[in-house]
C-alpha cells in the first residue's frame, strides 16, 4: 500500500482533491452563482431530471387511474371494456385539467398583483440529502431567476432561491431553520418572524416567532408576509395551528401550517421582481 502513496496515480488524485478544495473554498467565498463545474454538470443533468420528473408524474398518474379503474371494474364488470378504452383519455384529460387549474391559479396571482414579474417553474429534483424539503427547479439565470427571489405556489409562499445556475436553481423552503421571513397575523396585526424549526419541519410546519407576550393570536389565524424588500407584502404564508410561550417566556411563538404543500410540490412560480423589491448587491 505504501507504493500507492509514492505513485503518479496518488499525485493525480491529490491534484483532483486540491482542485475540489479550491472550488469548495471559492464557493464558500463567493456564493453569488454556482461554481463553474456545477454549472456545467447542471446544464447536462437538469434536462435529464426534467424528463425523468415528467415520466415519473405521467406513470404515477397512469397507475393511479389504473387502480381506480380496477375498483370500478369490481363493482361494474360489464363496464370494464368501456373503462379500459376511456382510461387513457382520462389520464390525458386529468393531466390537462391539473395543468389548466395550476395555470389559472397562477394567472389569478398575476391579476391580483400586476407588479409581479412571475416565472413558472417545475420541481425537477429533490436530493436524498435534502435540507428541510428543499428542491431544484428547471429555471435559472437564463430565465432571469436571481439569488433570493421569492418562490410561491398558488396556495402561498414556498421559499427563496438560494443558488442559481444557468438552467436550474435551488430553492430553500420556509421550513429551513436558516430562512427568516417577516410576517404578521392578519387578524391581530402582530408582527413576527417566520422561520423553520427542526421538530416542526418533519410535520411540514414552520413557526412564527417573536410574537408579543400580550398577542391574542390564535389557531386559525392567517399569517401573511409584511414586505420589507425581500418579499412582497401580503403573500399568504399559512395558518396558525397552535400558540405557545417561547423559551424564557419572553415572547410567544405560533406553529404555522404553510398554505403550500411544500413536501409534494410539483410546480412553483418565481417572483423575479415586484414593487418595492430591495436591490441586493448579490444579485
Amino acid at each position: 500500500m505504501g507504493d500507492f502513496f509514492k505513485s503518479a496515480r496518488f499525485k493525480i488524485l491529490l491534484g483532483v482533491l486540491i482542485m475540489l478544495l479550491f472550488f469548495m473554498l471559492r464557493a464558500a467565498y463567493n456564493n453569488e452563482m454556482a461554481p463553474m463545474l456545477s454549472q456545467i454538470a447542471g446544464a447536462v443533468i437538469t434536462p435529464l431530471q426534467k424528463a425523468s420528473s415528467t415520466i415519473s408524474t405521467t406513470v404515477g398518474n397512469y397507475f393511479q387511474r389504473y387502480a381506480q379503474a380496477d375498483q370500478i371494474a369490481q363493482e361494474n364488470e360489464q363496464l370494464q371494456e368501456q373503462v379500459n378504452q376511456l382510461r387513457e383519455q382520462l389520464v390525458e384529460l386529468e393531466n390537462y385539467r391539473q395543468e389548466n387549474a395550476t395555470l389559472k391559479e397562477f394567472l389569478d396571482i398575476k391579476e391580483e398583483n400586476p407588479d409581479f414579474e412571475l416565472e413558472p417553474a417545475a420541481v425537477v429534483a429533490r436530493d436524498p440529502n435534502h435540507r428541510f424539503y428543499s428542491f431544484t427547479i428547471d429555471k435559472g439565470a437564463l430565465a432571469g431567476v436571481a439569488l433570493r427571489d421569492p418562490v410561491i405556489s398558488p396556495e402561498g409562499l414556498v421559499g427563496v432561491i438560494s443558488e442559481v445556475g444557468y438552467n436550474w436553481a435551488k430553492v430553500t423552503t420556509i421550513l429551513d431553520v436558516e430562512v427568516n421571513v417577516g410576517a404578521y397575523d392578519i387578524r391581530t396585526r402582530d408582527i413576527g418572524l417566520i422561520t423553520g424549526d427542526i421538530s416542526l419541519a418533519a410535520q411540514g410546519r414552520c413557526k412564527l416567532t417573536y410574537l408579543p407576550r400580550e398577542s391574542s393570536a390564535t389557531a386559525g389565524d392567517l399569517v401573511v408576509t409584511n414586505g420589507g424588500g425581500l418579499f412582497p407584502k401580503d403573500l399568504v404564508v399559512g395558518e396558525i395551528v397552535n400558540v405557545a410561550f417561547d423559551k424564557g417566556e419572553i415572547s410567544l411563538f405560533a406553529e404555522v401550517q404553510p398554505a403550500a404543500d411544500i413536501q409534494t410540490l410539483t410546480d412553483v412560480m418565481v417572483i423575479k421582481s415586484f414593487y418595492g423589491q430591495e436591490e441586493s448587491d448579490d444579485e
Partner: protein
Amino acid sequence: MTNKRGIYAAKFLTYLGVLAILYVVQTTPGFLSIFGVAPNLALAAAVYIAVQEGEFIGGLYGAWAGLLCDLGGFTIFGFNAILIMIFCVTAGLLSIYMLRRTIQNYVGMVFAAMLIRGLLDYLLNYYMWGYEQVWRVLTGQILPCVIYTTAASPLCFYLLGWIYRWFSEKIDPQRSVS
C-alpha cells in the same frame, strides 16, 4: 489493441452515464422515495466501481459521483465530491490489500461511507450551528437515508457487476471474471 482501447473507453463512458442516470433517478421527485427518504445510489455505484477498478479509477468516479451529489445537494459545493472521492480511494485500496470483493464487504463499505458522510453532514451543517432538537435531523433524515442506501446497494452491485463482467469478457474473452 485499438479495439481494446475502444472497449475500455466505452466501459468508462458507460460508468459515467450510469452514475448520471442513477443520480437523476435518485433525485426524481417522488420516485424511490419512502416517507421523504431516498437512497444515494450514485455513492453506492461509485463505491462498486472503486472495488472493481481500484483506487485510481475509483477515486475519479467517486469525485464525479460527488460532484453530481453537490449539484442537487444543499451542502457547500465540493463537500460530497471530496468525501466520496476519499471513500472510493479507501474502498479501492481495501479491496486490493485487505478485503475480498464479496457483496457483504461491498455492502459494509457502502454503509460505512454513507454513515461517515451522514455524520459529517450532521456535524458540520446542523450540530455545530446549535439548532434546537437537532438530533431529529440525524434520526429522522440522515440515518434513514444511510439504511435505505445500504439496503438498495445490492442493486448497484448486481447492475454494475453485470456491466463490469460484460466489458471484461469483451476485453479478455479467455479470462473468467468472478
